[in-house]
């Protein structure tokens, strides 16, 4: 009875807020239909994937937010005491802020995942970006709530700013790397598996791009870890993905040499011919190849030591010309080359009556070439790596694989051609290099020509 009496007296005080509440609710249903239809049409026209995410994340909450709004307006039009209205309003506002924030966090997480995954950004970078966004939303939400409930803001703001500054200091090295990592991958500058070289001369295959560093395996097999922001600041040549991989890698060796003095000398042609027959192959090899190594800067290079000595010390120009014209490239072995040289000298001797003597101090000294071969850390698995290594190996390495492989190790051709044909199937390229007469080029020219031939194939 008491309730009925109370309602009879206060029905209008109750009816107005209730009507306002349902009125707002009805409007929200109508608004939702109109706005979501419009939104769906708009998103559909743009063929974007975010429509599902935005619509599914907000359709339900949209109604709930209007329920809260309805309750708030109803509260304000009620006849409650102002302090109760204020308290109720703040509670409703707090619920709204928390709810809105939660939805915003969900939405941001899904949108960040969608966009960054599409940009092929690293997982760790996605997680970091999501976390930063979520923390930012929570901090803003908490600050609004505190403001709402009248908490003293100045110390809180100071603490928040201090926390932000500390965070920036702690992550000052990480953040630029993170951003750089993002740029590197988003702009597709480099990808895992790419062969790159840096301005500093280092280079190799990209093994992994983490959110802070990029790991590169060098051509020597070493691992270099470069902070992403450093990588962004340097010039990178990206040779792209691994081309055809060789069935067996090419292991570069280098060849150094010692000159051993035999103590043997010649002061006339007869002595030269006679000594030439008895000295080891390594002596003949030295005197027919020393010019290749010793005069790399001259184009065309001087001829073999025998021709030079015969001309300079003995003054036999015709014989010098004949000796100089012997094409070393034609001979498969040092023995065959030796036979040719001694034959030419003996032919000349047979037609000469008065032999000339070299002036004192200008005798021909027989020198032996001792080759010392060492493996280098450079290994090529494909043509691109081969070219990159070829650019940086020493002249000794080039010399070994081209000259010594053929004449001293009795291989059918130079090592490069053998590998290119047998392990990479590059028959035509191999033949092109085989056909080069290395005696007609300086070592640096030879290096450049081989690189150019290979690059045409790339």
């Amino acid at each position, binding site marked *: 009875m008491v309730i009925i009496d109370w309602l009879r007296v206060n029905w209008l005080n109750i009816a107005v807020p209730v009507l306002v509440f349902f009125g707002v609710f009805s409007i929200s249903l109508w608004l939702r239909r109109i706005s979501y239809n419009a939104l769906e049409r708009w998103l559909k026209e743009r063929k974007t994937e975010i429509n599902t995410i935005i619509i599914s994340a907000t359709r339900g909450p949209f109604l709930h937010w209007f329920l809260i709004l309805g309750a708030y307006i109803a509260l304000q039009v009620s006849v409650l005491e102002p302090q109760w209205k204020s308290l109720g309003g703040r509670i409703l506002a707090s619920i709204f802020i928390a709810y809105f924030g939660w939805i915003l966090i969900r939405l941001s997480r899904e949108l960040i995942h969608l966009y960054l995954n599409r940009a092929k950004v690293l997982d760790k970078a996605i997680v970091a970006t999501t976390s930063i966004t979520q923390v930012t939303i929570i901090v803003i939400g908490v600050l609004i709530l505190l403001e709402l409930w009248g908490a003293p803001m100045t110390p809180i703001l100071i603490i928040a700013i201090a926390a932000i500054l500390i965070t920036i200091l702690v992550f000052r090295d990480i953040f630029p790397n993170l951003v750089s990592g993002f740029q590197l991958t988003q702009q597709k500058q480099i990808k895992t598996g790419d062969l790159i070289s840096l301005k500093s001369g280092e280079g190799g295959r990209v093994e992994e791009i983490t959110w802070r560093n990029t790991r590169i395996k060098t051509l020597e097999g070493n691992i270099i870890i470069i902070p992403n922001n450093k990588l962004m600041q340097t010039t990178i040549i990206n040779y792209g993905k691994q081309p055809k991989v060789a069935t067996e890698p090419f292991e570069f060796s280098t060849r150094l040499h010692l000159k051993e*003095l035999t103590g043997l000398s010649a002061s006339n042609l007869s002595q030269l011919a006679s000594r030439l027959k008895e000295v080891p192959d*390594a002596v003949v090899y030295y005197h027919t190849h020393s010019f290749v190594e010793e005069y790399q800067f001259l184009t065309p290079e001087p001829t073999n030591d025998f021709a030079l000595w015969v001309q300079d010390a003995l003054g036999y120009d015709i014989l010098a010309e004949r000796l100089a014209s012997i094409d070393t490239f034609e001979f498969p072995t040092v023995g065959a080359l030796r036979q040719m040289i001694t034959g030419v000298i003996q032919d000349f001797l047979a037609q000469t009556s008065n032999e000339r003597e070299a002036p004192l101090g200008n005798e021909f000294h027989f*020198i032996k070439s001792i080759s010392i*071969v060492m493996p280098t850390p450079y290994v090529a698995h494909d043509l691109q790596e081969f070219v990159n290594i070829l650019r940086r190996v020493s002249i000794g390495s080039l010399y070994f694989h081209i000259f010594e492989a053929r004449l001293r190790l009795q291989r059918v051709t130079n090592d490069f051609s053998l590998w290119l044909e047998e392990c990479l199937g590059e028959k035509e390229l191999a033949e092109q290099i085989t056909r080069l007469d290395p005696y007609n080029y300086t070592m640096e020219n030879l290096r450049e020509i081989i690189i150019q031939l290979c690059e045409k194939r790339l």
Partner: protein
Amino acid sequence: MNPTINVKDYEPIVGKSYIEELSMLAHRLSGKTVLNINSTFAGGGVAEILSRLVPLLNQLGVDVRWQIISGDTQFFEVTKKLHNALHGKVEPISDDEFSLFLETTKGNLDQIDFSGDILFIHDPQPVALIAKKGDIGRNWIWRCHIDISHPDSRVWEFLKQFVINYDAGVLSSPNFAQELPIRQFFAPPSIDPLSDKNRELPAEAVGSVLAKYGLNQDKPLILQISRFDWLKDPLGVIEAFELVRKNFACQLVLAGGTASDDPESGEVLEKVKERAGGNPDIHILDIPPGSDIDINALQRAATIIMQKSLREGFALTITEALWKAKPVVASAVGGIPLQVKNKLTGLLCHSIEGAAYALRQILANPDYGRWLGHNGREHVHQHFLITREIRDYLLVFLTLERKEDFINL
């Protein structure tokens, strides 16, 4: 040696791969100790090259040490005589002096700590230390820095009895090779491109040195750097210059020093000054020892550098000139033809007239001079820098016990 110089500082000059190869060789020597023994820590070419080589080899990771023999004045007078005799000069050396040499060596055998796996003995003064090989074994190498192409036979026979017990010899020129039962390797001397005598100099520094010596910066400059010694033929240089000056406006600089241990040098200097007379285009400069930057500047300022010696060792002054990309005119004596390949890396001559002709060719054709200079610098770059000498020594140490012609390390 400048203590701040590091082996990596040579990378821009010889290339990264060269230094990498040195490191690879040095790595293979890890665990071994190389002991250098010579007669002095300071003064003379051997001490100078060791003071550069030892720190660089240690930086590469090779345990290289350096000791000297001790001896009184009489001992070093005897070794000086041995040195001259090996150069071909007839020296009266008595049996007592040979005995003194052996006695001092015996004292050194007791004093020196021979803790090394490879004993690298430099020049004739400590050569007889090989006697220790019978007790301690190990590898012994004799590094002969001097010209022994025409040694006094008595002195050579005396020294040979020690040399033949070494495992190998290292010589500076092919014509120094002797008939010996041991292996002889060829490793020419070298210059250090980072030393004061060879490093790059700014144009102002060169200009101030020219001003200091009162030289005309606008007139072609022909230069011979050598101590005042008849064997360097300073009068022949003046004569060749006078032949050239008839047709070309140029100036001659004869720069060098007088050695305190060579009483003749003062006399030579006086004669040279007398011969130059009052010719304002001939400058005779008596440069004190240690004036490396002055010498460097003079070489860089020169149009042509001469070395018209009558007899010569290796002639590192030519190496220095070539390194500065200067066209050179030099006599075909000693180690000069190893460096100057006629008409390729410089011009060789055999007479005063020949020298004058070569000077004229270059003065009349500056482009030809530049081409020769460029080739000369490349030649030194490849064969006569300190990094090559380091490499040669490392290779000798590593392959001492390998007799093959083709060695896989």
